[in-house]
């Protein structure tokens, strides 16, 4: 019986890593990176869904989180609340230099940069904004991490 459950779990893990769900959090970004994230998913030219992933509308369904923006003081609590709702194991991808270091807003009094003092970040995709192919590269890296974590 235990062996059967083990096989079932292994099979489920194998299938799950082929189809992660992506969720996007905007932590006060200028919208540049969000446009690139949308481009990556919606425009057939880039088509991130070839990697098996799909954007989902609820944080409770998500496996991979794309975070954009420098974590502004105003949005911080909401971002942390939504982030806590995402089930483990999750992989966080910082899209753009804003969530990594604060980028152009680094010294501002209105942002809590860098973000990784509040949220554990697994993959960084620098750029302002990064090009869609770079985001795809970051997502591919995140899938590999997620596979190891599952």
């Amino acid at each position, binding site marked *: 019986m235990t062996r059967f459950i083990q096989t079932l779990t292994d099979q489920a893990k194998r299938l799950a890593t082929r189809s992660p769900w992506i969720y996007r959090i905007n932590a006060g970004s200028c919208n540049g990176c969000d446009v690139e994230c949308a481009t990556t998913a919606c425009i057939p030219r880039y088509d991130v869904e070839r990697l098996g992933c799909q954007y989902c509308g609820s944080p409770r369904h998500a496996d991979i989180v794309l975070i954009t923006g420098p974590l502004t003081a105003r949005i911080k609590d909401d971002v942390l609340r939504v982030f806590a709702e995402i089930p483990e194991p999750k992989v966080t991808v910082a899209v753009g230099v804003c969530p990594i270091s604060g980028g152009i807003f*680094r010294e501002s009094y209105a942002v809590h940069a860098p973000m990784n003092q509040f949220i554990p970040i697994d*993959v960084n995709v620098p750029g302002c904004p990064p090009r869609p192919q770079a985001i795809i590269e970051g997502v591919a890296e995140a899938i590999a991490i997620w596979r190891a974590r599952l």
Partner: protein
Amino acid sequence: MNILKLFYRNLTQGPSTVAFPFGPAWTPPKLRGRIRFDLPACTGCRACEQVCAPGAIRFDKTPEGLRFMMWHNSCVFCGLCNFYCPTDAIVQSDDWHLAHPTARMYEMAIRELIPYTACSACGTKTLASAPNPVGVEPPFSAEEIEQFRHLCPGCRKKALEERTPNHAPTE
């Protein structure tokens, strides 16, 4: 009619999705990507540090010399450093493969040092940086750059006046 044309085109040309990450991706020739720094060409003028809005470039005075630091995780790839550098010591390449695991985030930096040297004419402690080529006629040759590198600012000025008596740069 249009839809038929589109249908025909799609049939003959295949999908428009780029193959990346399963194949190479096309890169525009002027894409502003990873920064490259050429230490021997740097004059230490710090213009790049001045114009860098997110503070991705930093110069620090250390006992050994002038330390240059540049961090890609703060850079917004605006290209201003490239534009204002008088010697093209700092240029932007078209390499956009910058995604990395967080554990490697501090490896995404360039760290170099312009060391101190003793002026070959008067012995004063000075930075071994390249001479500023702006307005110098005729342009510096490679040997002259090496020769000027080991002169202090005062001796550089004298050497420049001797080199081009009629074109001495004004203050």
